[in-house]
């Protein structure tokens, strides 16, 4: 864990207590069984605690605590698989902070900070993230195109859409049609068809606005994945210390000890990479590279740990009644988000000139 300031420690402890007491994995199970995208009361509680405004400037109703602070909260939510539009909405807000006009900021940021408005990114157009390419186009302030597998789409009032010539804001309503897509993680995903939907450009962000938003999406998603890694690791370790076979607890078997030592090593190096990504966002230094690193490490570590988590739990890990399977299913969805490792390694090599 990075060395934190008082404010960050407070925020992390608050998030840790809240998820533990108010929103453990059982809460997600209820949401899933009810077929809801998330628990509306829980989202209100998060908003009341100020989490939706952590990266929004104070003048627009946020606290401007920064990305490390938001990452700490997101990690805690990742541990308990808390379903919420927090990440999606924060990313939408960051797009407006980076590229919005004064009017756009005044119009949207206060409502995003209070949680009253939910925003989300609509960038990718196919089942795999292949970079910042979009065929969606805008003519006379109207956007047309189809966006695939948009996260937290069903309750979103505002879409931040990547078009062929820049990034646009589109409000839910005229010209916007959602078709939900149920993925294995049972979270809120949809294909969105924009047909001459009124769109306003985020014109103040410069040519690399979309890249900056993507960097933030990668790091924040990696923070959620880090929380999931930690939770699966901790749960598995607890289980190995309890389960008895051959008259011994499993944790006394060296074959399992060494696998756990390997996972611990992966987990800790992933933590360093994710915290490095959050620190880069706050400092503004070498952000794109740090973001690629954070997401790639999180992808690979969570892939391994979620898989090993099932195996080390044995048969009980295969049951729906047990939580560890939730993490496996959510893991693969997040691995695909904003760049799978194969895409990111290719990108990294290109960035480095080889």
């Amino acid at each position, binding site marked *: 864990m990075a060395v934190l300031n008082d404010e960050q420690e407070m925020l992390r402890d608050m998030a840790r207590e809240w998820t533990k007491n108010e929103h453990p994995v059982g809460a997600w199970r209820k949401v899933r069984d009810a077929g809801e995208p998330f628990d509306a009361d829980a989202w209100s509680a998060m908003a009341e605690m100020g989490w939706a405004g952590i990266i929004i400037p104070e003048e627009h109703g946020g606290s401007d605590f920064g990305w490390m602070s938001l990452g700490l909260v997101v990690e805690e939510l990742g541990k308990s698989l808390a379903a919420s539009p927090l990440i999606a909405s924060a990313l939408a807000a960051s797009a407006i902070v980076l590229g919005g006009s004064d009017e756009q900021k005044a119009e949207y940021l206060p409502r995003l900070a209070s949680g009253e408005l939910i925003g989300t990114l609509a960038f990718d157009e196919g089942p795999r993230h292949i970079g910042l390419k979009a065929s969606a186009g805008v003519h006379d302030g109207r956007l047309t195109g189809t966006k695939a597998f948009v996260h937290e789409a069903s309750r979103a009032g505002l879409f931040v859409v990547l078009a062929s010539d820049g990034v646009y804001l589109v409000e839910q309503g005229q010209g916007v049609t959602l078709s939900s897509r149920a993925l294995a993680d049972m979270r809120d995903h949809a294909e969105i068809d924009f047909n001459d939907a009124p769109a306003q450009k985020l014109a103040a962000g410069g040519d690399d606005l979309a890249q900056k938003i993507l960097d933030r999406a990668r790091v924040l998603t990696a923070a959620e994945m880090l929380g999931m890694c930690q939770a699966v690791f901790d749960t598995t370790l607890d289980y190995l210390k309890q389960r008895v076979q051959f008259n011994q607890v499993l944790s006394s078997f060296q074959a399992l000890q060494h696998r756990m030592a390997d996972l611990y090593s992966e987990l800790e190096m992933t933590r360093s990479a994710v915290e490095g990504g959050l620190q880069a966002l706050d400092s503004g230094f070498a952000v794109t590279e740090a973001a690629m690193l954070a997401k790639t490490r999180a992808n690979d570590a969570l892939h391994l740990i979620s898989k090993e988590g099932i195996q080390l739990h044995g048969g009980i890990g295969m049951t729906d009644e047990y939580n560890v399977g939730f993490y496996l299913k959510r893991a693969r969805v997040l691995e695909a988000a904003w760049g799978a490792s194969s895409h990111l390694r290719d990108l990294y090599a*290109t960035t480095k000139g080889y």
Partner: protein
Amino acid sequence: MASVAEPEAKADLDAFREEVRAFLAENFPPELRGKNNILSSVEEAGEESPAEKAWRLAMGEKGWGTPTWPKEYGGGGLTKKQARALEEEMAKVGAWNPIGGMGVMMLGPTLLEFASEEQKHEHIPPICKGEIRWCQGYSEPNAGSDLANLQTMAEDKGDHYLVNGQKTWTSGGQWADKCFCLVRTSRADKHKGISFLLIDMHAPGVEVKPIKMISGMSPFCETFFTDVQVPKENLVGEEGQGWTIGKKLLQHERTNLSGGGALAALNSQPLGKVAERYIGLDENGKLADAELRVKIADFEMRWNAFLLTARRAMEESKAQGGVSEISSILKKAGTKLGQERAELMIAIQGYRGLGWEGEGFEQKELDGTRAWLFGKATTIYGGSTEIQNNIIAKRILGMLDHQ
């Protein structure tokens, strides 16, 4: 000493930097700029040039080779901030610390903690001056990972111990003046029968045979003790306290092996750049070997995550005032990455990455071959990766002792 306020004020530190700069201008031979070979201390003790000798003597006299050790034993007596300033000023002019080896890395800190006042005064100043070369007598043919199984006997003969037995993997044994040794003073208890003894390598009955390794070098020796008389005052701590002292010393070893410092220096040439030279780029500007390209990117990213982890371990340790838990993974992770890098270098360079000697190769290529082979030892010595895994599982993760 605690009552004396540390001279941390900026003005004092600036004055100290002035002193360092003046000292370096006067004493550091410019021809030695950047000539420090990071592997030299483990691999080979070459002939010392007059300039190198002068530089060692000057630093030894100041005690700045062991900057934070107490002045009364020949150390520099510097605060941590001063030591950092010294390091920075030296780096600026390409100067390096000529005082090193096992005396500095391992034995010195152990003596400061466990030795008697007389022993400290006798043994620490020569370490600070770089006058005495120490080697480590731990491993034996039947005591590797199971170190406590060691059988070298030290029999009590009244005023001295009579030592008989064999040590192996004695790094630098053929050049060492003295050896810090784990010996058995009793067969009654596996761990409590072990004592920590300082042995003169020039004493009658000590015989050293270098072991030729797969790298073609002989950095390690077999050391034989036959009726070697060791004065009783060379026992550090109490009889039977050797295991405790010896384990503590290994912590210093691990810290030094794992910090990533040496590896970071070796990594100064980005693999992608090396590959570009040997393999070339295709029409899209990508390395002409697609599989290697991905492997290199994967390695470089994992390497960066490791460096971030080493830095985090340092920051956490500083903030907590104790060794951070994640330090436990650094040796295991760093040595694995170092080996992976060496294998990738060979894959990139083809035959030129396997040059043994003679014409047709750059020196860097020849060094790479030896470093690749030598590097296989890193996951075996200093507590093998399997031993590191046991330590992580038991101490950090709280898993039970295995059978």
